[in-house]
């Protein structure tokens, strides 16, 4: 809305104090409150504005064309290999009390309102060259099913339902007898997970591993976080 100059001053006339105050107040109010033409009303932006493509610049990583989406992509070059090891644990290298956040896959997602986040990820996981990522590091079969886990951590809560590992069990032809959990020593692990309702605000999402091998690594990874508001 353009500014309207209320009481122009006239040459050869006394400047009235009330007129000055009125003009100043009108100017103050306009500058503080009444410049509204450039304000976008709630519920006013439709698909024509979105499809134009400018919303990519709204904030980094946002694309309204397919939900609010943030992506992480790292190609599979050797130089971008990121390692993890059980030696981060001061004692009990096979314990599951210390987790390693995988580099370059986490994201802080800001929700304007309560909503869901649909997480799609693919990560190439490499264990020690000759070992599956099982808990005793020799590829043998164990009974208690403990092993390296890859999970999604949301605000520090490592969701059990976001396991990315395979569970191997000796069928014993044909009756199952023994079992252990392991991530194969080299595999592209995909995952799809829809979060529970998350409150408006910031949410920290990371992929974490419980390393029980001397030297594991991840290479290429591709993660997308897609936000849907309630």
């Amino acid at each position: 809305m353009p500014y309207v100059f209320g009481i122009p001053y006239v040459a050869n006339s006394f400047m009235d104090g009330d007129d000055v105050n009125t003009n100043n107040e009108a100017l103050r109010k306009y500058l503080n409150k009444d410049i509204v033409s450039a304000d976008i009303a709630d519920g006013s932006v439709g698909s024509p504005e979105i499809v134009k493509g400018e919303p990519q610049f709204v904030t980094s990583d946002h694309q309204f064309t397919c939900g609010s989406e943030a992506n992480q992509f790292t190609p599979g070059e050797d130089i971008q290999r990121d390692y993890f090891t059980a030696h981060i644990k001061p004692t009990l290298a096979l314990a599951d009390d210390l987790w390693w956040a995988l580099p370059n896959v986490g994201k802080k997602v800001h929700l304007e309102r309560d909503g869901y986040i649909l997480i799609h990820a693919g990560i190439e996981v490499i264990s020690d060259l000759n070992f599956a990522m099982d808990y005793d590091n020799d590829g043998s079969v164990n009974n208690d099913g403990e092993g390296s886990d890859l999970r999604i951590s949301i605000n520090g809560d490592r969701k059990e339902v976001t396991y990315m590992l395979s569970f191997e069990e000796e069928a014993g032809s044909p009756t199952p007898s023994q079992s252990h959990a392991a991530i194969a020593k080299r595999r592209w692990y995909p995952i799809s997970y829809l979060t529970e309702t998350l409150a408006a605000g910031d949410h920290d999402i990371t992929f974490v591993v419980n390393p029980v091998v001397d030297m594991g690594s991840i290479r290429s990874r591709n993660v997308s976080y897609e936000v849907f508001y309630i």
Partner: protein
Amino acid sequence: MTINSKVFEPGTLTSAADANQPHEDIVTASAAIGADATRTEWASFKHITTSGKDAHPITPYMGKVEDATHFKVYDNTAYATIEGGAGGTPMALTGLPITLTAGQTLRLHAGCFVTEVTHTDVTADYYWFRLVAEIAVDGGAAGTVQLTPDWGYSLGSTRSGEGFVQTYGYQRVGLSWVHVCKNTEEIISEVDFQVKLEDASNDITIAECHLIAIKTTA
């Protein structure tokens, strides 16, 4: 346009023209304020309309999310809809029906957490997932349509039953599909995420599951 302020020296008589100038400058400058917002971060989701012909091109329909404590064992050899826990109701999308017109797409994502498995018959240990929908085409009666292929998995590492056979459980399954409306109109009243096993002597346990359909109108 920059609005300048005029600085008066003490003892100088001001004029009406001088006093008017800043106001007139603002009148001129403010007239150029358009409705186009060019600043970055000028819009949020609050600004996006959800109705009318220019509505937000994305409309999500959510299936419910269950946590790991809600699980159910499946040993059915005919397709059955995955339910939200033992004795629970079938996982259903919210906001149905979905109306699609020609050329519109429906992006579907389904996933679940397969936990414990029973691997008795290693020679018949396949299992499959699929998505089916109830669709009324061009005003007709609703019928069941399989949207996707049968997505196949196996419980074991070999199928011969000979020697050492490994069984795979405890991992997430993630499935995606895009449905394109090729008819004048399709009204989708139900979408189901289903599973079946090859042999009833085997079973799988499914915990958290989700289904989301995203309609793209643009």
